[in-house]
């Protein structure tokens, strides 16, 4: 029976009827995700339209950012997202032992992001750059720090999921918590996908 259920829920192709369509995770987390996307959206557009008034300043100061660090962080976040995705898939398939391994891998990637980001901040701090240095740096620090805090929260969430997965909490019949946490983490990734080109690349 359990295997049947597992196979049913792991059916990846789009369900045939609208009734089969299901939102992964809890509605509450999705309301939260929408609110967060709204905040980030407004912040992104504030950056973009402010830049339009200070093109030269933004362009020259943007070149002082560490693009490679930004790219590596993108890779780390995407990989973490992939690991989280695999953890959910493992839970659906009833492969309990693999859930916490994938989560651990995701946590490692998240930690990698934190290390790279702290390195970047340390370099900027050493150069005497702060929120009050210029409009560009204000945005750079505000946007990335706000996102950075989301990564930290995401790590806490993944950590809780990992502990609970080790205790055997998740399986085909109990996915709500895992899917909710996973959705939150993917949101952190999604936001970075826009943030990285916006702040580091677009000139």
């Amino acid at each position, binding site marked *: 029976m359990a295997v049947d259920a597992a196979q049913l829920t792991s059916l990846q192709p789009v369900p045939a009827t609208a009734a089969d369509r*299901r*939102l992964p995770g809890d509605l509450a987390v999705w309301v939260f995700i929408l609110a967060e996307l709204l905040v980030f*959206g407004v912040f992104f557009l504030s950056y973009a*339209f402010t830049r339009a008034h200070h093109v030269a300043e933004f362009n020259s100061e943007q070149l002082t950012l560490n693009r490679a660090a930004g790219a590596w962080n993108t890779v780390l976040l995407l*990989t973490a997202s992939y690991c989280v995705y695999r953890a959910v898939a493992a839970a659906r398939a009833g492969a309990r032992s693999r859930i916490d391994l994938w989560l651990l891998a995701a946590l490692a990637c998240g930690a990698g992001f934190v290390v790279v980001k702290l390195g970047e901040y340390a370099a900027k701090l050493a150069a005497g750059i702060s929120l009050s240095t210029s409009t560009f740096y204000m945005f750079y620090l505000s946007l990335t720090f706000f996102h950075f805090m989301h990564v930290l929260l995401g790590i806490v969430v993944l950590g809780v999921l990992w502990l609970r997965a080790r205790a055997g909490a998740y399986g085909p019949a109990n996915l709500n918590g895992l899917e909710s946490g996973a959705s939150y983490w*993917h949101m952190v990734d*999604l936001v970075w*996908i826009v943030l990285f*080109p916006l702040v580091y690349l677009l000139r």
Partner: protein
Amino acid sequence: MNHALAGRRRGTWTWLALLGATGFAWWLGGESVRARSAVPLLLALAVAKGVLVVREFMELRAAPARWQLLLVGWLVLVAALIGVAYYSGVR
């Protein structure tokens, strides 16, 4: 278990595609490329990556259509307005 396997493969391809797109975007954002011509391409890449995350990783592909619409709509709207802002900044 075939479906599960197909799902995993799909996820892996998604991940690889995202990494490839990131590498391309990083190259585009480098100083060797004329920045202005890269703007639409970089925005399009960001939207494409976002759509992949929304549909595959977040699994909204299999959720009621309104959720996918909301998130992809957010992506497209934000990217489009960023584009507008960039071109309004041209002098």
